[in-house]
């Protein structure tokens, strides 16, 4: 292998270790791209980026890795910020801080290569050291790693702008926004603080539109239904009786009534609020939407000017009692349950060892089209301690884990 090809292969390995997914064909493209674009630093950087980075959210990581690998001869700028970056990057990738050692001065190519290989290896080791954590997340490796930096997402985006090794006139406003919203989409609700919640609300604006479109597409089955014989014959008279144009009878639109129950206790409350807002944005896809929130009792919820309003007001310090909530729902069944109703419940099913009343849930499921349970809790913890989720899960059509925004969107799409 030529040294350059070798170096590209190692570079790709380092990017993979940093969490960017790169296929073999893409690394071949990268080699061809460098071959075509030449070795001038800036154009080589862009060539590699065009071939390897398919997601703007990954660009910052790419730029850092590139700076480590192909150091600029004397442009102190990128190198000056470099140790800091690397430390952050690694702490982000591994979830704990570790100061990055910086090769001093301009290392010889060979040394540099070994160093970066070592860096890649140690990053990999660190990742392997933490199987428990990874399993707990049980999301694809890429998603998990990208999710982690979200905690420092704000600094991160600022950093990203610096890291972009480009002319002074460029700011990358939108790029930073993309990276931020991507990170927050993958941050587990369990790790939310108010800061993440605010960021998630920002991201939700985009997500809402996407969700509405996706849901609409799912609900709208084939536009055309059965053949409309009368109209087909009429159209055929224009063509001398040949049935050239088939006319279809439009289908009756599916009408779904949605009844939502969202647990607003403890850490589940972030997920609940985000879900209610997401569904509120897609309201027009449903015939009727009734939203409720609960802790130990049921309260009708509504969005007024972007804020969640409940009536009657809930006692936020109460202890969860879903059995009682089911009872209250059952009492109101005439208004909120029907053959076209899908009931969506968001909660962790932790009932403080009070009566679960799963029998009521079975009755409710029997009286509506379907019950779907979205659970923001980690599946590893389902059914532990005071969780009654296993009793409930038996009675519902689907029981889905929704640990972050992405999963929440996916879970909600499952109702259609």
């Amino acid at each position, binding site marked *: 292998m030529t040294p350059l090809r070798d170096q590209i292969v190692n570079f790709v390995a380092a990017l993979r270790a940093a969490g960017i997914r790169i296929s073999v064909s893409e690394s071949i493209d990268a080699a061809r791209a460098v071959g075509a674009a030449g070795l001038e630093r800036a154009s080589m950087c862009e060539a590699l980026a065009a071939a390897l980075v*398919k997601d703007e959210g990954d660009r910052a990581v790419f730029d850092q890795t590139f700076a480590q690998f192909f150091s600029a001869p004397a442009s102190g700028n990128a190198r000056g910020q470099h140790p800091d970056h690397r430390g952050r990057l690694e702490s982000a990738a591994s979830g704990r801080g570790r100061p990055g050692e910086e090769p001093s001065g301009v290392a010889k190519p060979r040394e540099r290569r070994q160093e970066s290989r070592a860096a890649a290896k140690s990053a990999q080791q660190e990742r392997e050291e933490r199987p428990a954590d990874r399993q707990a997340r049980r999301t694809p490796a890429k998603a998990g790693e990208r999710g982690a930096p979200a905690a420092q997402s704000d600094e991160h985006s600022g950093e990203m702008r610096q890291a972009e090794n480009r*002319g002074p006139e460029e700011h990358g406003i939108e790029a930073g926004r993309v990276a931020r919203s991507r990170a927050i989409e993958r941050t587990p609700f369990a790790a939310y603080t108010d800061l993440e919640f605010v960021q998630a609300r920002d991201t939700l604006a985009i997500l809402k539109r996407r969700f509405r479109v996706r849901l609409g597409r799912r609900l709208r089955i084939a536009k055309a239904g059965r053949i409309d014989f009368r109209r087909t014959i009429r159209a055929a008279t224009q063509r001398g009786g040949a049935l050239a144009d088939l006319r279809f009878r439009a289908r009756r639109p599916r009408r779904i009534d949605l009844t939502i129950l969202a647990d607003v206790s403890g850490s589940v409350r972030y997920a609940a609020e985000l879900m209610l807002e997401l569904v509120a944005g897609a309201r027009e896809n449903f015939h009727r939407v009734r939203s409720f929130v609960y802790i130990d009792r049921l309260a009708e919820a509504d969005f007024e000017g972007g804020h969640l309003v409940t009536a009657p007001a809930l006692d936020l310090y109460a202890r969860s009692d879903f059995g009682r909530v089911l009872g209250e729902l059952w009492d109101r069944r005439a208004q909120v349950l029907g053959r076209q109703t899908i009931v969506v419940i968001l909660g962790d099913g932790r009932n403080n060892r009070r009566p679960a009343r799963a029998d009521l849930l079975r009755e409710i499921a029997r009286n509506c089209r379907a019950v779907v349970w979205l659970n923001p809790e980690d599946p590893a913890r389902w059914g532990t301690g005071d969780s009654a989720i296993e009793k409930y899960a038996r009675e519902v059509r689907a029981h889905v884990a929704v640990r972050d925004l992405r999963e929440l969107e996916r879970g909600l799409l499952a109702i259609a």
Partner: protein
Amino acid sequence: MEITQEFVADGLARAHYITNQRVETAVFLALALDKPLLIEGPAGAGKTEIAKVIAAMLAAELVRLQCYEGLDEARALYEWNYQKQLLRLQADQAQGVRWEDLSEHIFSREYLLERPLLKAITAPRRVVLLIDEIDKADEEFEAFLLELLSDFQVSVPELGTLRAHELPVVVLTSNRARELSEALRRRCLHLFIDLPGIEQERKIIALKVPGLDERLAAEAARFVSAVRKLELRKPPSIAETLDWCRALLRLGTRELDTVAIRTALGVLLKHEDDRAKVESKAAALAPRRP
């Protein structure tokens, strides 16, 4: 004609497309490696424009496929001209033509309605194929595009496989209405175009709104850049900036003070909330003159 980086940089400049190294390199590679180029970025950053510029640069025809929800192969690739086939059948009925001859006849290219994708593949000369807003199309359609993008060939059951004589230059654009599949991303080179920085935008304004006073253009660019940094529902795009500058020109604005900002703000911002937000900060955002 040989494709070099200078040729691309030169071509972009000649087409009045103000750009940077990133765009140049990506466009150059797409041409040099014959790979599709996937362009992402906010609305109004000039994604579609790149395809047009490439077409102008190569003096090639631009074939455009606008994607939308529910777009299917019949609309994108080809369709048999059913009515024409029927007419042919009826016309031939009287003459007692044998079925073998007939079927050969009515399933020939003459009865095929070419849609953009087939047109791009069967074109005798190299064309630029723009698949616009691929994120609006359904996932199934995206999967169908994969064969096309990797081999530039299409199979029509009655005619066999049609292969491109000249590989078209393919440009895909996406607004991220949904996440594109990994498979599609893998097959493309990727380019992210962001909204321009102050200096770049000033150049664009100077180029596209030539009548505007230079100092005012610089102030406008700085103002728009500051506006974009506010958390807005829809940050102004380049097209909106240009419209706004044209409005300033027509209004005879000499100085970008709070009054001037308030007057024409509707051209720049299309949401009432955004407008209120910027108006409330107009004094702070207005450039200070000595």
